[in-house]
């Protein structure tokens, strides 16, 4: 041990240490004197001052709650408003006996067990001069009763505060979301000061995503009170600053048309403004009334929503993940054309079955019973009539690597980055994905399933709309956005990727084929072309909710409705200069053509009509 220091001089070291320690103790002493002087200054020199402050007058600081930012649709129609609500609050230190006060109040108005429980919990965390809410949303009659009996109820007050109100009720429930009371878990993470004036917080949807902007800044008020805590006068006030107002891309009229077009069926629709990526309509049905949550929903009512078979609380538009079915065929066609896998002239003979070398079980077309789509099926016909056999072959030739590489450029298999919380990513399968998720290698059979949007593939209705918009805009990659401007300042959507590199002639070809899906007499969505004065491009899709064997025929009449196929539709219009793109699904709606496509038509009609009147106004 000591050999390291053979040359050192212990006596000198000891002396050096002692000197240093002396310096240290000197500093300690000086700082102790500084502390003593500070306490002397506070306790002796300024004693009178502080004693007065502490004994006679109490200066209380009260938070002034900011009013939450409003939410408007693109035309300035209010979607989320604030309106006054009257609460019963208690200031503990003003009441002689809280138990008796609660008792007294219980005789006058109905106060639930839950309210009292929550009140007690809150009470333990508040300072005794702070108002603590006991009961929210007093009716006119209750307010009158309390006013009349006011003299007996020292410590109880009715106070008005602004609460959230959603005038369109269930129309925007999923997109806009709602605010609710701050729960225990949230109170662990929020900054207590910022929320000192408010007891609600954005729970889901835009209300949650834009919480920081909507909240506003709490103000404060210094109030001088007498010894019993009654406010005598306001000394100083820092006003609260209202939250930012949001203006959305959403169009209330379009939203209503879309919502009503579902006629109560379960499903979801997303409509995107092609030029901006802004969301014009975003519907998930069935819906619920967000106003129920604002002041606290009753357990019974909440259970009814939560355990309903139709799952109204579930936001299908961004959280529902469905196989996209044939709706991805135009996109896969574009990929194959661009990479010279097929040409427009390339044809196949489709007899309804597709055999892959080495595999006994055939893949079949949906109309295999009729013997397939026959001879001379090219890409266009394969899209228009939705021929599976053509796409099985196209898929195998293209290979999963290209399909998934381009697929993600079209917005599949990853969160789109929309300004909403809780979006699901879907699945655009690849070799790496299968290895990671299933620990298995990729097989050609997987490619064959993927090539008609089945197998592992999953997409959200939002992703379908995004894919449709990217096809419509000929490869412009735009992140979907709900919020157009905040306090009047335009928000630019972040660009997520480069322009999708596909030649103009291929876009032309596929746009034309998608137009024929609606407008040609063979098109699978010809049902919606009656009386159209503009052109729609679309693609139907059907996604199996259950699996059917190759030799078994799908027969909806033998299945209960919740096992019926899902109907899907992607579309954009007008074809020559696309303005609006749609992705939608009707759960258990059977065929894209019969149940899904008419909903899109209704939305397109409403949109074109509004554009027409808008141009008229301009002229």
């Amino acid at each position, binding site marked *: 041990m000591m050999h390291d220091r053979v040359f050192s001089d212990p006596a000198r070291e000891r002396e050096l240490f002692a000197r240093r320690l002396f310096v240290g103790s000197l500093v300690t002493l000086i700082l*102790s004197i500084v*502390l003593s002087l500070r306490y002397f200054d506070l*306790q002796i020199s300024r004693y009178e*001052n502080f004693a007065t402050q502490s004994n006679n007058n109490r200066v209380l600081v009260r938070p002034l709650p900011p009013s939450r930012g409003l939410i408007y649709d693109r035309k300035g129609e209010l979607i989320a408003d604030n309106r006054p609500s009257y609460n019963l609050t208690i200031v503990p230190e003003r009441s002689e006996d809280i138990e008796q006060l609660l008792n007294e109040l219980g005789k006058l108005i109905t106060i639930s067990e839950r309210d009292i429980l929550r009140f007690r919990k809150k009470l333990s965390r508040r300072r005794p001069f702070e108002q603590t809410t006991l009961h929210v949303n007093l009716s006119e009659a209750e307010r009158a009763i309390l006013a009349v009996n006011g003299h007996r109820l020292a410590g109880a007050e009715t106070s008005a505060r602004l609460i959230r109100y959603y005038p369109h009720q269930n129309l925007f429930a999923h997109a806009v979301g709602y605010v609710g009371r701050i729960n225990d878990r949230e109170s662990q993470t929020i900054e207590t000061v910022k929320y000192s004036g408010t007891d609600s917080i954005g729970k889901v949807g835009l209300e949650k995503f834009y919480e920081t902007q909507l909240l506003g800044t709490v103000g404060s008020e210094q109030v001088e009170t007498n010894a019993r805590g009654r406010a005598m006068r306001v000394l100083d006030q820092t006003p609260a600053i209202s939250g930012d107002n949001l203006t959305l891309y959403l169009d209330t009229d379009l939203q209503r048309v879309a919502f009503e077009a579902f006629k109560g069926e379960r499903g979801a629709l997303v409509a995107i403004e092609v030029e901006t990526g802004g969301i014009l309509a975003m519907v998930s049905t069935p819906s619920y009334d967000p106003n129920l949550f604002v002041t606290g929903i009753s357990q019974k009512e909440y259970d009814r929503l939560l355990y309903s078979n139709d799952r109204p609380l579930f936001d299908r538009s961004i959280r529902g993940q469905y196989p996209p079915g044939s709706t991805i065929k135009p996109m896969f066609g574009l990929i194959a054309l661009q990479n010279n896998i097929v040409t427009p002239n390339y044809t196949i003979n489709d007899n309804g079955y597709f055999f892959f070398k080495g595999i006994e079980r055939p893949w079949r077309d949906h109309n295999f019973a009729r013997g397939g789509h026959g001879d001379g099926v090219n890409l266009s016909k394969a899209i228009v009539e939705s021929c599976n056999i053509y796409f099985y072959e196209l898929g195998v030739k293209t290979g999963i690597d290209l399909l998934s590489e381009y697929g993600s450029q079209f917005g599949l298999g990853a969160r789109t980055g929309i300004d909403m919380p809780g979006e699901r990513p879907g699945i655009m399968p690849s070799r790496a994905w299968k290895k990671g998720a299933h620990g298995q290698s990729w097989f050609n059979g997987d490619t064959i399933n993927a090539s008609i949007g089945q197998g592992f593939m999953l997409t959200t209705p939002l992703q379908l709309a995004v894919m449709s918009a990217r096809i419509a805009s000929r490869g412009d990659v735009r992140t979907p956005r709900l919020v157009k401007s905040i306090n009047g300042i335009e928000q630019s959507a972040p660009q997520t990727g480069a322009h999708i590199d596909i030649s103009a002639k291929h876009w032309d070809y596929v746009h034309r084929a998608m137009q024929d899906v609606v407008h040609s007499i063979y098109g699978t969505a010809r049902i919606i072309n009656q009386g159209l004065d503009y052109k729609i491009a679309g693609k139907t899709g059907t996604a199996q909710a259950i699996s059917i064997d190759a030799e078994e025929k799908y027969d909806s009449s033998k299945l209960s409705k919740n096992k019926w196929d899902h109907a899907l539709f992607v579309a954009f219009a007008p074809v020559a200069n696309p303005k609006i793109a749609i992705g939608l699904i009707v759960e258990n709606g059977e065929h894209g053509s019969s149940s899904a496509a008419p909903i899109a038509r209704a939305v397109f009609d409403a949109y074109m009509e509004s554009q027409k009147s808008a141009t008229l106004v301009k002229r």
Partner: protein
Amino acid sequence: MHRGDFVRQLNNPGGDRRPSRVLHIDIPLLVLLLALCGIGLTVLYSASGQSIFYVKRQATFMLAGLFAMLVMAQFKPRFWERGSMLIYIGGLLSLVAVLFFGVGAKGAQRWLDLGFTRFQPSELMKIAVPMMVSAYLSKRYLPPRFKHVFIAVMATLLPVFLVAKQPDLGTSLIIFSSGFFAIFLAGLGKRYLVATVLLAVAAIPTLWFYVLLDYQKQRVLTLLNPGEDKLGAGWNIIQSTTAIGSGGWSGKGWTQGTQSQLNFLPESHTDFIIAVLAEEFGLIGVLSLLLIYLLLIGRCMMIALNAQTLFSRLVAGTLSLTFFVYIFVNMGMVSGILPVVGAPLPFISYGGSAIVTLFSGFGILTAISTEQKRI
């Protein structure tokens, strides 16, 4: 490790059979510590809103701490010298683990969940850093050369940085001072001292713009103008100075402080507990407490001066100076002359880990103190 390290009294050549010798107890140190514990429990009862629950828990922590101190005192200082590197590295690794697996509340990750209990590595570092730096420097020429100072500084700054990242500014300040004191006591050259002061001044803008988080900056601004932030940290300072100031010479009497009893005073049983003492026992109470603290520090410095080895001297000196930093930071912050950082008042503030850490530090001091007597 020598077998004899643990049960030294078996071959105690001095043959001193007094219980304090046998059990390795430094009586003045123990008496002062017990006095502080007594004051602490008394004030805590009042500060916690007369809650016997808190007092019982705190007393349990104190007993556990005393036990830890007694156990640590049984080892020779040389044992701690040899083990310091291992403890330091273990502490450093668990600090890194906290960054990844730590648990905590309100945005700060400070704890490691070991399943059966929770462990706060930053507390361990309050002792590990002074021991490791002292052990390292005591093996070199003194005063230390540049290279050695550099290594010692790095060994200090690494945990300081990791703890500041949690973020726990109060603890990282304590660890920093302990490392600095060890180097200072080892005889750091005057030129270095001047350079350190200059560096510290130069570091202020860097800290302000790159290291401090918004809420931490807010606390500094609050110190300069408490009226600005009436609902947040400003509230604490306004209320704590009012509580202290209204205490006067002799205070309002035990459990009679209106500021603290009416809950005006936030965190009254933890970091701000000195305000309760000041309100209820007045300036006399504050100065008496300060006097006990200074006597304790004085006793520790005596131990340092009489210690047998360089390592023992450095550790004892460092721990006694660091102990004062706790006191100065806490009493300064509550009285509004320092920004609000999370720093408890030793033996008075409620909190288990801090109590056990403090007693452990005094355990090492006792080990050093009882060694000299034996030779």
